[in-house]
């Protein structure tokens, strides 16, 4: 096979970080090449170099035997590179076709030839099994379809190399399998695919070659037929990581959180939570599985007091907190690891100590309500940094200087360290490295063992399955299934997540 693309000795430094350290990468024409690594391993930086978004400090790029300098994404596109970003870059109010042909419209006498445009989009979609209606408006389409539009956009620009940056993060299992099908078809048609991911199951399912990055270096190039997930994981982390086991369930206690017929309004006055009732008992982890945008975020915001309730009741123990202020709910025994740790869970410009204080600034152990002694606050912070292995230069450093994993440890430390009856964990391990994931999972299981009630929301089905005592599936604002994690497989959960057997992805 011929070599399509070669990166030689790519090095990129950022202040204080060596993001890429003499990375060599050889991609052959017509293969699916997986780039795997933990967050911060340099995957995104390397792809940004390749796509012309960042200039490397050292190293060279060779495309089809020719040394090139890629100064901008436009140059990358003209070299036949196409990138599908994690966040889609589409015009919501335009049609699929209009988005695809944008700036390269087929024209006759200076007038856009809409018929030809639709025809070409339709043809591309047919050829690779990317089923999309070329005339549909983008904002009306689900996420999985938008991704296909992005792929068609790249193909329309005659990309021979497609870079897919963590494409499965937003997909249901069914949508993911369809994407893999499309990737194989593209490969069989001679295109080359660079697939960025940190999920080992996906790597094993679809890769022809695997390059593992760790701390800015390419540490291994592997053949999926001759390796195991454990070996890849070892290369990614540099050590063995034992998967978390839920273990035997303790007998559950009384309900700590009781929700009855809850209705919550979303962005445009539409009900996004429609009549949800659920109980979370002491010594129980209830997992909520749902595709993004099915009301789970609004449900959690209503429980923690950040979104008002239209109808129904929320009880914490025997306290009705349906309309209570956040502080009142925290006093009643709620703690919360929020989905967005950068915007909600921490303040980047505040110190580590200030961040570790939030929510408990009026608690008795830290002063009792009015006064805060800097020494006490600082000792509290140092204690938590030790207990939860938060690596911070010192407690006076700005939280914004911490890495993603350490920042999440900070949030987990703060929310776990107080004696709360109910823990709500929303995407607790998203974007953190494998070591921190194991740590956070063990903390959540430990909370359950100590008799707390845990409500877990996650887009990672493996996480939901590994931790939950019960799985509730949410679809379009309702709870559509109550499942036993030991009795169902991923496919079945995925089916419920997309509205049951009636709807294919």
């Amino acid at each position, binding site marked *: 096979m011929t070599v399509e693309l070669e990166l030689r000795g790519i090095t990129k430094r950022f202040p204080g970080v060596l993001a890429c350290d003499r990375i060599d990468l050889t991609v052959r024409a017509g293969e699916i090449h997986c780039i795997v690594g933990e*967050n911060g391993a340099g995957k995104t930086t390397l792809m*940004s170099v390749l796509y012309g978004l960042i200039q490397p400090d050292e190293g060279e790029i060779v495309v089809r035997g020719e040394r090139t300098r890629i100064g901008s994404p436009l140059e990358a596109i003209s070299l036949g590179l196409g990138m599908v970003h994690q966040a889609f870059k589409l015009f919501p109010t335009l049609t699929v076709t209009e988005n695809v042909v944008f700036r390269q419209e087929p024209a006759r006498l200076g007038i856009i030839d809409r018929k030809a445009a639709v025809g070409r989009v339709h043809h591309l979609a047919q050829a690779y099994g990317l089923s999309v209606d070329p005339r549909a408006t983008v904002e009306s389409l689900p996420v999985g379809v938008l991704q296909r539009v992005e792929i068609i956009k790249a193909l329309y620009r005659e990309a021979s190399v497609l870079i897919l940056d963590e494409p499965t993060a937003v997909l249901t299992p069914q949508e993911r399998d369809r994407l893999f099908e499309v990737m194989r078809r593209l490969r069989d048609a001679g295109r080359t695919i660079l697939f960025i991911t940190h999920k080992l199951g996906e790597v094993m399912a679809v890769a022809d070659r695997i390059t593992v990055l760790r701390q800015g270096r390419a540490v291994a190039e592997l053949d999926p037929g001759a390796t195991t997930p454990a070996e890849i994981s070892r290369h990614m982390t540099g050590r063995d990581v034992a998967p978390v086991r839920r273990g035997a369930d303790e007998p559950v206690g009384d309900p700590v959180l009781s929700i009855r017929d809850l209705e919550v309004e979303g962005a445009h006055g539409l009900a996004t939570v429609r009549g949800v009732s659920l109980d979370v008992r002491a010594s129980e982890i209830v997992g909520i599985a749902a595709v993004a945008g099915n009301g789970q975020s609004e449900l959690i915001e209503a429980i923690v007091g950040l979104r008002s309730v239209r109808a129904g009741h929320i009880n914490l123990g025997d306290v009705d907190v349906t309309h209570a202020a956040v502080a009142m709910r925290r006093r009643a025994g709620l703690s919360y690891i929020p989905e967005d740790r950068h915007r909600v869970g921490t303040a980047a410009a*505040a110190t580590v100590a200030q961040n570790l*204080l*939030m929510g408990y600034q009026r608690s008795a152990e830290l002063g009792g309500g*009015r006064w*805060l002694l800097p020494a006490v606050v600082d000792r509290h912070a140092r204690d938590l940094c030790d207990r939860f292995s938060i690596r911070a230069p010192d407690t006076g450093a700005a939280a914004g200087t911490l890495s993603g994993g350490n920042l999440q440890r900070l949030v987990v430390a703060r929310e776990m360290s107080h004696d709360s009856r109910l823990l709500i964990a929303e995407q607790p391990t998203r*974007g953190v490295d494998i070591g921190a994931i194991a740590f956070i999972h063990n903390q959540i299981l430990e909370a359950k063992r100590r008799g707390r009630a845990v409500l877990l929301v996650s887009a990672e089905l493996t996480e939901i399955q590994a931790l939950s005592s019960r799985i509730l599936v949410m679809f379009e604002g309702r709870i559509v299934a109550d499942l036993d994690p030991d009795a169902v497989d991923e496919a079945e959960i995925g089916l419920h997540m997309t509205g049951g057997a009636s709807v294919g992805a």
Partner: protein
Amino acid sequence: MLEVYRHRASSAVTHPVTLALGAAFGLGGIIIAVTGGNPFAAFSDMLLGAFTGSGLRNTLGRSIPIVAMALAVSLAFRAGILNLGGEGQMLMGALTGTMIAITVPGPGYVVVPLALIGGALVGAAWALLSALGQTRVGVPLLITSLLLNYVARSITSYLVRFPFGEPGAAFATTSPVPPTARIPKMELLGMGRMSISLVFVLALVILLAVAYRRTVVGYESEMIGLSGPFSRYGGVNVERHTVAIMAAAGAIGGLVGTHLVTGETYRYIDADMIAQTGFAWTGLMVALLAFNRPLPILAAGILFAGLQIGGFAMERSSGVSWQLAQVIQALVIVALVSRFVVTWKRTGSDGDAPSEANTDPAHVGSV
């Protein structure tokens, strides 16, 4: 964003404030030289005029309203509340305090506090219009507080011209405040007589320094300024803080206004008072220069007061217009702010874009 600097170690020489001051005086010197003056002589006249002899007393006297208004601004800015209504809060409070001092009979120890309390209450009420507009109706406080300044000007001008005006006066003014109802003066270290308001301003500096660092409300309001969503998440009542902080800032404005009449000029003269509201804006610059921290506010407030007083001295001795002092004040802020813009741009453009930002479903959902 401003707070970030606190955590960045920088030496005294490369500190942004030092650089801003250096740049401002440098540019000011160039302006003097270009217009045919001697910058060294001018600046030394300025320095001597501001900080020696009766100049020092005048500088300290002028620092009272500047430091107090800067503290009022810092209260709000620290919590991310963009209160630009110091001017209106001063005017409304000043007229109220003056009218109480003129009309209420009784001994000074009753009337003076009463006038100050009245001024504070009306200043607070004026500020609350903006606060409640934001928390209840959602009208941005930045806009209402700024525009209410003009409303306050018109209301006070009208009142001083007609119902409260001194009959037969040649210009819009109230009657003089009777001597018993004036804020007393004290002897200050052989420099002459100084309003006792200075003591209260120093007390306020210490009070806020302690409150900012060692109280729960100080912590909570700082966190609101650093991140609203984070504060709400932690159970901070952002609306209640907004209302309380605006009331406090407005009360300080009203006190300063009352002090300016019953402690300094003894008449509420319409044109003078509108000129005096410049202290609200000087205070804002001081708060910016001092990063909203009370002790640096005291230092920067005295510095700016000295610039103004020294400016007059410079004009008398060197013939350089005193307005150059205002130019330098403005240059300090421009230099300081442009420093931020440069740093901001630098940190914004390089650095690995955190890949987590991309996985945020909000981005995806917005398509």
